[in-house]
């Protein structure tokens, strides 16, 4: 659905979504990289389990929550990609071990 602009010359960066490599561009937020890669959902909701993609892209709606480098429930629209980054879909509510 989303296409990169033709004059975007930024360097490619490889991140991993649930262990699978995804190509992003330097300076992408994780949320933008997910949308550019055509990912079908980036989390499931805690209340109904419905799939979600990033929405507001500006830190407000919390629809883009993902586990990023081992930290759950991060707002993917507020984190920039880094080569080798490990990203996972946030499945429902965060599990904390007591």
């Amino acid at each position, binding site marked *: 659905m989303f296409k990169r602009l033709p004059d975007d010359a930024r360097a490619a960066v490889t991140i991993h979504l649930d262990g699978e490599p995804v190509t992003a561009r330097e300076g992408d937020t994780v949320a933008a990289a997910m949308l550019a890669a055509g990912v079908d959902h980036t989390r499931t909701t*805690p209340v109904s389990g419905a799939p979600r993609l990033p929405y507001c892209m500006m830190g407000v709606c919390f629809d883009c929550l993902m586990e990023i480098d081992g930290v759950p429930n991060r707002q993917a629209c507020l984190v920039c990609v880094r080569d080798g980054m490990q990203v996972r879909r946030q499945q429902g*509510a965060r*599990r*904390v071990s007591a």
Partner: protein
Amino acid sequence: MTRAETADAIVVGGGIFGSAIAYGLVRAGLDVVVLDEGDTALRAARGNFGLVWVQSKGQGMRPYHEWSRESARLWNEFAPELEDATGIGVGHQNAGGLQFLLSEDELAKRRADMAQMQQEAGPDSYDVELISRDDAQKMLPDVRIGDSVLGASFCPHDGHVNPLLLLRALHTAFTTSGGRYRSGRRVETIRHDGHAFVAETADGPVTAPKIVLGAGHGAPRLGPMVGLDVPIRPQRGQVLITERLQPLFRMPVSHVRQTNEGTLQLGNSTEDIGFDDGTSVDVTRTIARRAVLSFPILRDVRLVRTWGCIRVLTPDGAAIYDESQSHPGAYVATSHSGITLAAINARYVAHWIATGEKQPGFDRFSARRFDVQAAA
């Protein structure tokens, strides 16, 4: 455009107090209009902590303790009734509740308060017990309690609900039962035209033989127009909200509770600073620190929101329910415990307003209890 309306009863205020009473009144067969102020109002109904709480209620006024406990009991039928009527589950849980004691001073004060309330109960039960940290841990087996916790008081009648879903359920139940909810309708004046009360708003008057002030901090301005004194003051509480977590808490603690949708609410601060409903770093820090001392795992849990909310505080902390002596048919109902009292407000209080029949001892809740001056 102005429009005139008539009804059997006007309820001023569409928060938890006003909505619960209004719902009870339509259920009792009255034709009811709710006049709600709008987004500029303080709206404690939208910022509160969601506890159905009994253990600390009514110290120095036993009837209020019994009133709160009866409401907590009624909640067990009220919540399913609302869900049946609206399809909205309000997340009610009545598994008991804990108040944590984090120092010898807190422990001693709680022990003394409980002894006083036990004495005030006389031969009746008080049903609050001091328990050890280990016993509290058994009640919260999924989250480790910090070493700073010396003990807790436990009351089996305590519980909680989701207050925002409750407000929506009350509004939905009210309107689907035929009630008329009017938002953006600040009541400017109330007068009696010889036959009925007339509530004037910028969009026109509403006329009814009964009028109920359930308007929180809006009530002190309106009360004197119908001979009602409403001696309340504002008290701010700040609330912190965390990211959503898998279920950790099997029951609420008075300063930490997990909502039915996974977030934690941290709170229980009190500040007397007027009507400023903002937040402050020092208080949020204190709330967060106490939460982390109580449950060390929270150190790594992310906060997503904070807000301030203005409580309605009466001089003795108990509710005020009054009918005007000079203007019969005008009522006031107010307290900071709108969630706890929602069930009893929808039942007994609405029944009183609809029929005049009072529960035994109900007159104790009149604001006239504050009229007697202490000897100098």
